[in-house]
């Protein structure tokens, strides 16, 4: 069963940060894909990564 923040492993292999085109780290606990270089965390909702810079959490 998929939980709200689980994500298709095939996606994790290929996704990059849309801003820096650099790698993303999957934070399973927070349900986010983290771009350290951009200082952005992209949320995962209902298993769908939201790869929109405008909707990412800044840190």
């Amino acid at each position, binding site marked *: 069963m998929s939980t709200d923040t689980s994500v298709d492993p095939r996606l994790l292999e290929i996704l990059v940060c849309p*801003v820096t085109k650099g790698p993303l780290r999957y934070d399973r606990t927070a349900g986010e894909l983290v771009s350290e270089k951009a200082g952005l965390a992209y949320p995962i909702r209902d298993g*769908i990564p*939201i*790869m*929109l810079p405008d*909707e990412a959490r800044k840190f």
Partner: protein
Amino acid sequence: MSQPTIRFDDGAVYERAMGVWSRDAGQTFLDWLAPEAGLAWVDVGCGNGAFTELLMERCAPSEAQGIDPSEGQISFARLRAGAEGAVFQQGDAMALPFPDHRFDAAVMALVIFFVPDPAKGVAEMVRVTRPGGMVTAYAWDILGGGFPFDPIQREMRLLGGFPALPPNAAVSTLPALHALWTAAGLEEVETREIIARRSFDDFEDFWISSTGSGGMNPSLAAMAPGDVDLVKSRVGDSLTIDASGRIQCQARANAVRGRVPGSPQ
């Protein structure tokens, strides 16, 4: 007066309004591209997955990634039985979340006029496509009257209405598409016209199908009720009805294809 903007948030309503049109145009588009099987595709601005489904049905892709900014459309796409095997997520055509040269083919199906900066969108497709790969699009010829809802929009304009248009309607003419593709550094750029056909049970079917979506509804709602009735009756008079009483409609899209420079790896 500001124009209403177009939003597609509901995949099911969009399907009835535009999905059928999209599918018919998409078939002709794929006939023209005649892509080989087993390619890795990215469907940029995939919406509710209408074209992604066609890719899965016809092109036996090794991989199909669909990306669209609308959560509602992506949710619908993910449940589409015919698109099983494709992967969908929310993202921006001007900032694709994919590495360079990742795909064999990139496509924008009926979407380039919605991209705020179309040249940036094309540049992103070029970036994520491998050397020798294919960058393609097709889009309604809005300025040339090819949009499926043009019969309604024409009458609205005559009555002083403001039918919503995509922000970059001018980009979908044949010369504009050719120029965009060439400016993006693509080679062997070719364009062509696509005629899409659709029939409706009767006028009510045509009207409800065409006006239910986020494309037409806000613009009509902004008109006086009497004017809407007038639009409705004039559109009814202008449509082609066949011997069996069905309404036959036609729309026109323009398509473009180009190859990313460099030899395939």
